């Protein structure tokens, strides 16, 4: 310990120097930035504290943990000396982690469930929903005197049973006996901490009050109270009886027994299902469905092929036209080039989704300008015939995309030094050879990354497809809602959000498949452009 090796000495020097730098940094800061910093962190902490409290009362422990970790990290990063890069990276990273990284992972999780219409909650919720939806008023059952109470925007029922007991309950908590209620003529009319609704209030909130069901007890089979008028409540008992021990649902009218067979819904022996069900882990079922079921595999395959064809054609056509125009207008002697240029890039400035909608109008089969005026009233199905629709999409995308390629190619052409062309011409090269062997390769070097990003953009060019054709014409034989011009991303959207039923599980499985495809394309293109090499 007594002797200092040169290494420890230099380490100490380093430490000292770092400390000196920190002190200097600190001294130079001034008081205002520190106040701002403390104020901002105080705001973050206050919001976090509130969020923690709310999450706790809802029993959402995952949210609670996430908020806690974020708050802890923020405090640590900004109060700790040093860690300078973290101070600059943390805000963006928090958003990136939640809304980009986490949701990708979550997509992966959903892909292995049957989440979707009829399967979007827990089994408990499904039991409750089924029992409540099958409730019927019990004939000749006694009426309960009722006063509707309000507390912080939530309504409760204060009921006086025929035997005189007074109890209170609401949508999520069953009736429980209370004492000390304010009585009037043997009927409870008020309770401390609550506001009693008078007749006018009840009328005003009639819908919410009529939709309320307050359970008699913890057991859903005991039935629940409902009120048609806000002054009397009646007992409703469900025709579905839930047997918790056996895990079965029995229809008391028909005697059919529905049991949990592991498919996420109560199923009878004949295969009939009660909806809503609940979401369960289905393992690889979505993927096997996608790859083996003919009515899904076929469309998935053709959509994948069309996605690639469309993206490739889009890049090729826009690049070809853009490059051609760049060459045509790259002539110094031509007059009015500036005017041409400004007018030509207008489609690029026009918002893309509007462009597609306008073209949808132009190409309309019955009333569109193209058919009505240019083709003299011919009813050419530009958007409703499979092949014409594909053609129209490429045509409209050319309109949307060529100005960009024109701008980029013009820029790249002008950055190629004239000396190269001159030297080659002196050496006897023909103009076309100069273009093919000198200009084009140089052009491609600077434009290749843009072509790849254009490909990636068109690979997910949802707006164009959805606004122009909605993916149609629909493929009638398909087991899912897809059409001839759907690309992968619009297929995912339609399976999940378009139409009467949503299959989030299947849509997420499709998303995962696309992730894999996109990654492969990206790896190949990165290798090609070696764009990762100059990161240092």
């Amino acid at each position: 310990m007594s002797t200092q090796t040169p290494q420890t000495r230099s380490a100490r020097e380093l430490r000292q120097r770092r400390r000196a730098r920190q002190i200097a940094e600190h001294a130079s800061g001034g008081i205002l930035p520190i106040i701002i910093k403390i104020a901002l962190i105080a705001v973050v902490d206050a919001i976090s504290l509130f969020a923690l409290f709310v999450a706790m009362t809802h029993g959402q422990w995952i949210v609670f943990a996430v908020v806690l970790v974020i708050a802890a990290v923020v405090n640590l990063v900004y109060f700790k000396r040093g860690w300078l890069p973290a101070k600059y990276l943390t805000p963006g990273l928090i958003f990136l982690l939640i809304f980009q990284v986490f949701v990708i992972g979550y997509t992966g999780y959903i892909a292995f469930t049957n989440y979707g219409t009829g399967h979007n909650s827990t089994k408990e919720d499904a039991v409750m929903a089924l029992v409540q939806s099958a409730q019927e008023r019990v004939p000749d059952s006694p009426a309960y005197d009722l006063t509707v109470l309000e507390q912080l925007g939530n309504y409760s029922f204060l009921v006086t049973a025929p035997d005189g007991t007074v109890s209170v309950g609401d949508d999520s908590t069953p009736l429980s006996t209370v004492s000390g209620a304010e009585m009037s003529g043997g009927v409870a009319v008020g309770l401390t901490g609550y506001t009693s609704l008078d007749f006018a209030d009840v009328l005003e909130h009639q819908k919410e009050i009529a939709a309320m069901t307050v359970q008699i007890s913890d057991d859903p089979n005991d039935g629940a109270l409902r009120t048609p008028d806000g002054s009397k409540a009646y007992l409703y008992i469900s025709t579905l009886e839930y047997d918790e021990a056996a895990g079965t649902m029995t229809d008391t009218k028909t005697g059919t027994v529905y049991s949990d067979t592991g498919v996420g819904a109560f199923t009878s022996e004949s295969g009939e299902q009660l909806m809503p069900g609940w979401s369960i882990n289905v393992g690889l079922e979505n993927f096997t469905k996608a790859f083996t079921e003919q009515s899904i595999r076929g469309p998935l395959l053709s959509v994948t092929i069309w996605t690639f064809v469309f993206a490739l054609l889009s890049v090729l056509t826009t690049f070809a036209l853009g490059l051609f125009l760049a060459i045509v207008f790259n002539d110094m002697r031509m007059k009015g080039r500036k005017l041409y240029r400004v007018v030509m890039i207008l489609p690029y400035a026009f918002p893309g989704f509007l462009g597609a909608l306008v073209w949808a109008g132009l190409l309309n089969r019955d009333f569109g300008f193209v058919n009505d005026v240019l083709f003299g009233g011919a009813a050419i199905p530009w958007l409703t015939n499979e092949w014409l629709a594909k053609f129209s999409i490429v045509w409209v995308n050319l309109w949307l995309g060529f100005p960009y390629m024109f701008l980029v190619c013009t820029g790249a052409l002008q950055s190629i030094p004239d000396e190269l062309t001159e030297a080659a011409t002196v050496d006897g090269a023909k103009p076309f050879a100069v273009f093919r062997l000198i200009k084009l390769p140089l052009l491609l070097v600077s434009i290749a990354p843009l072509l790849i990003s254009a490909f990636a953009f068109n690979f997910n060019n949802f707006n164009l497809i959805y606004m122009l054709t909605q993916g149609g014409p629909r493929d009638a034989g398909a087991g899912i809602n897809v059409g001839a011009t759907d690309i992968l991303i619009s297929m995912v959207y339609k399976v999940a959000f378009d139409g009467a039923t949503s299959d989030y599980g299947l849509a997420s499985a499709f998303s995962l498949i696309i992730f894999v495809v996109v990654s492969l394309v990206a790896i190949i293109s990165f290798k090609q452009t070696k764009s990762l090499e100059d990161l240092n």
Partner: protein
Amino acid sequence: MTRTQNASPETRQSIPTSKAARPAKRPVGFSRWFRATGWRHLVGVIVIIYAVFPLLYVLSASLNPNGTLLSSNGLFAKIGLDSYVTLFTSPQQPYAAWFGNTLFIGLTASAGTIFLGALAAYAFSRMRFKGRRFGLVSLLVVQIFPQLLAVVAIFLLLNTIGEIFPVLGIDNQIALILVYLGGALGVNTYLMYGFFNTVPTALDEAAKIDGASHVRVFFTIILPLVSPILAVVGLLSFIATTNDFVIASVVLVSPEKQTLAVGLYQFVSQEFTSNWSVFAAGAVLAALPVMALFLYLQKYIVGGLVAGSVK
């Protein structure tokens, strides 16, 4: 490689003519003029018709009082501002609200994107730390997976959060902005990082010697110097958010909270043919400010795109 074949015949023509024109004899005949530059004008006119016609058409349709899709085919046959009035008075489509929402969401999201992106770009460009290269590479990798694809997960996530904090749930614009900020790092940081690197480090080192803190250097020296790229990133992210349909349509449910992309699409998909001129008026009003801004800034945008991609 078909590209080469497509483009080649034209170049073959263009370059010999340019050489032939130089020792030109005095009287310039029409055919000589046409071979040199005239045909270029012909190409230009054709392309301009292709480029501008849909825009003229939508302008004409918007000026057609209460026009349908069919009656809009007579270009500029009737002129009136009725559709513009209907746009703001009809309860069917809360156009003014859509416009305001789009501006609010777009501006807030792009301001946030600029700020978060610039912070990160500053760190990557000026500091050397463990995991820096890994960070840069993983930013690129994460960007390969667009948020669009995770839209189901975003929907379900917001649904869950919304049960606890309604402010951050479905049908809330703040939630949508936060989702957009999830993409703040990535391509934008890359563009900025490339630009930050072109600012000489001697500048901030000098400031540090003079006693400026890193915060001060960032706000008073770096940010003003990189303002062109900040404008580009801001405009790009503004355009991206105003053009977004997928996430906005999933998050925003009630009509008065929606953006132009969602609202106009739903309006036109319900009443496609009968209210065409009202839609056209909405489209013109929505496009004009964006186009004006775009034309004003286009030099920087193209420059930024090329520079960013090469870097």
